[in-house]
């Protein structure tokens, strides 16, 4: 069955009318928007200069921290390191301890080192708190259980987190024998006192923990807690470097680590 001239003209006319009617709206949808940018170049140059001016990154083959508990105990109730850490990293403060987010915190000696605790343990240990943080284990169980690769051990020993990839399954929290990881049960933003623009906050449903201040190391600075400690109780350095301070301390003084029997090889050492 063919199409006669009359019908063809009808369709042609209708099509033309429709397309004409449609053009302005289509045009508005697809029209290119040209962005004109003009004035000077100084801002860009300044940014580039800032990038160059950033210090050379501090690098190591195995980052480690030594915490001198004697010095730490001497400064009773001092929380400089915790404040510095939590301020730098936009860590929220919740009133309900169940919501607590902690990167660096204090815990009773008998809780931190329950296998070292005994009836006649030194009084100073019995009554003083022990500073705790992520141990940046050589064999981190949290990394093994993470299903998305959101946490991993870098070749310099830092157990790093990619918050973009964390799906909040909390396997790592179950895997970590040190309680170093916290989960954001609530939106942390309203509970951050003085938000730092240079560091992201986290969102609800993401796990977070200490990263040994890798963002500061990358800019040639020591971790915030180490810088903040007036007692110099926190010593940070490269364990693979025989001349590093941490290495010298560990080879000359007796130190302990948390739960060594688990075989996680923590890289945070305590002088007691």
């Amino acid at each position: 069955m063919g199409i006669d001239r009359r019908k063809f003209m009808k369709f042609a006319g209708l099509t033309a009318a429709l397309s004409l009617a449609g053009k302005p709206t289509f045009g508005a949808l697809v029209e290119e928007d040209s962005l004109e940018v003009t004035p000077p170049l100084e801002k860009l140059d300044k940014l580039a200069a800032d990038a160059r001016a950033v210090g050379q990154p501090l690098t190591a083959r195995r980052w480690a921290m030594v915490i001198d508990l004697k010095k730490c105990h001497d400064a009773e109730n001092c929380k400089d390191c915790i404040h510095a850490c939590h301020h730098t990293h936009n860590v929220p403060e919740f009133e309900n301890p169940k919501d607590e987010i902690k990167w660096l915190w204090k815990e009773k000696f008998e809780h931190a080192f329950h296998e070292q605790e005994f009836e006649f343990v030194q009084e100073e240990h019995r009554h003083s708190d022990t500073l705790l943080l992520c141990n940046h284990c050589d064999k981190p169980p949290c990394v093994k259980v993470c299903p998305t690769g959101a946490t991993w051990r870098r070749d310099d020993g830092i157990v790093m987190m990619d918050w973009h990839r964390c799906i909040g399954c909390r396997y790592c929290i179950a895997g970590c024998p040190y309680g170093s990881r916290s989960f954001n049960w609530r939106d942390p933003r309203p509970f951050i006192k003085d938000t730092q623009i240079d560091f992201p906050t986290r969102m609800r449903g993401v796990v977070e923990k200490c990263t040994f201040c890798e963002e500061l190391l990358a800019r040639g600075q020591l971790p915030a807690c180490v810088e903040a400690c007036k007692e110099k109780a926190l010593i940070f350095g490269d364990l693979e470097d025989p001349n590093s301070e941490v290495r010298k301390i560990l080879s000359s003084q007796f130190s302990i680590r948390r739960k060594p029997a688990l075989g996680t090889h923590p890289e945070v050492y305590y002088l007691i």
Partner: protein
Amino acid sequence: MNNSGKIFAGLAIFLLLITLPLWYSAAFGGATEKPDLKIVCDAKECVAPTAYMTAYHMDLLNEWRDEVVRDRDRLYTAENGKTFDKSLSRTCMNCHYNKADFCDQCHDYAGVKPYCWDCHVEPKETP
């Protein structure tokens, strides 16, 4: 052809409804208001040509994100030979600090909801 009236009326309504996205804005306005970005940046050029940034800034940001977080590669050398910190807050937002009049303009228009700002902190509207 007793029902031709109903059929054509039905067809007309059908056509009207199915072309709704095309004529709705022309008739009622609103949806196709073009994004009106304000570029408050006093730099002459961006870290890449404007056309590239307009089309592919999200890809660049994703690359930066992965390289910084996962590969510890923090410096970006632009085509013009300048080196920049791969940082949304330190580099991008340093010039484009007016998120509402810059980022949001197109994102709202295109109906995309990037989750950058769930975590990254939006600068206050001052340089």
